[in-house]
């Protein structure tokens, strides 16, 4: 199965990168754009199928390595291969 993890800065946390990108969008004339946040996606393959065990394994991977719970949120999508 294919896993895609989306990591984004917590809404309560300042995102300087997002602010800079928003500024650039506005300077290109897209002045109505608001709330830009920059995160990252991590994709990988792993054996098995979508199950509570798989999801708890993925939580373990996401919570600490792929994201830092102090500053980031994550969610993942599972695509059966």
């Amino acid at each position, binding site marked *: 199965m294919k896993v895609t993890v989306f990591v984004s*800065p917590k809404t309560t946390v300042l995102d*300087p*990168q997002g602010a800079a990108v928003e500024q650039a969008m506005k300077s290109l004339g897209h002045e109505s754009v608001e709330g830009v946040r920059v995160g990252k996606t991590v994709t990988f393959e792993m054996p098995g199928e979508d199950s509570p065990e798989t999801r708890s394994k993925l939580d373990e991977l996401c919570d*600490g390595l792929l994201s830092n719970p*102090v*500053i980031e949120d994550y969610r993942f999508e599972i695509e059966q291969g």
Partner: protein
Amino acid sequence: MKVAIIQFPGSNCDWDAEHAVNDVLGIPAKRIWHKSRLPTETEAVVVPGGFSFGDYLRCGAIARFSPIMSDLKEFAAKGGQVLGICNGFQILCEAGLLPGALLRNDCIEFRCVNQPLRVEDSNERFSRENLGPTLSLPIAHGEGNFRADDSVLSDLEANGQVLLRYDGNPNGSVNDIAGIRNPSGNVYGMMPHPERAVESHHPVQDGLSVLNAFFEPIQKTQSVELSPS
């Protein structure tokens, strides 16, 4: 060997730290590869600056899972003295040895200057009496913007765990925080580089008093004077 300086792939202040501790302070120090065990004779650990594992994912996120980190956690739990400088501070936060996290500087720029700092009365060693009310130390980082949630932050302030604050905030760090310690006072982290401010040919020498304060528990000799240039 008394002081272990942990060397990760991408560390780049490890040699400077070894020089400052070994040659300038005169405390035997050695660089220890991150896949090694922490030597049993270790009395203090420096986690140096740099870009461990290329800063991939987040600064310190991968170093945190290096083999030596389980020894380091045990060493810290038993009261061993640990100092994280710059990327070392980021690694200690990722590892949960210090609270909070370090985000991208709010200015987006990498900041590389001699930074004025205000000293806090944190404990006997890290006090205004011992270090003076202000210091100047080099900073060189792109992710030094310290953040913690409100309850963590109020604990840090209430327990006097803040060591140093920026005088003129270079990175957006909350409450101008430049360095903190853990509640028991054996794990220290700071963004400024004391190891780059120890020689008479360095623009500033305030790193000496900071390093002396950190190493005081393991130091038999008196404080170190600058060697003549």
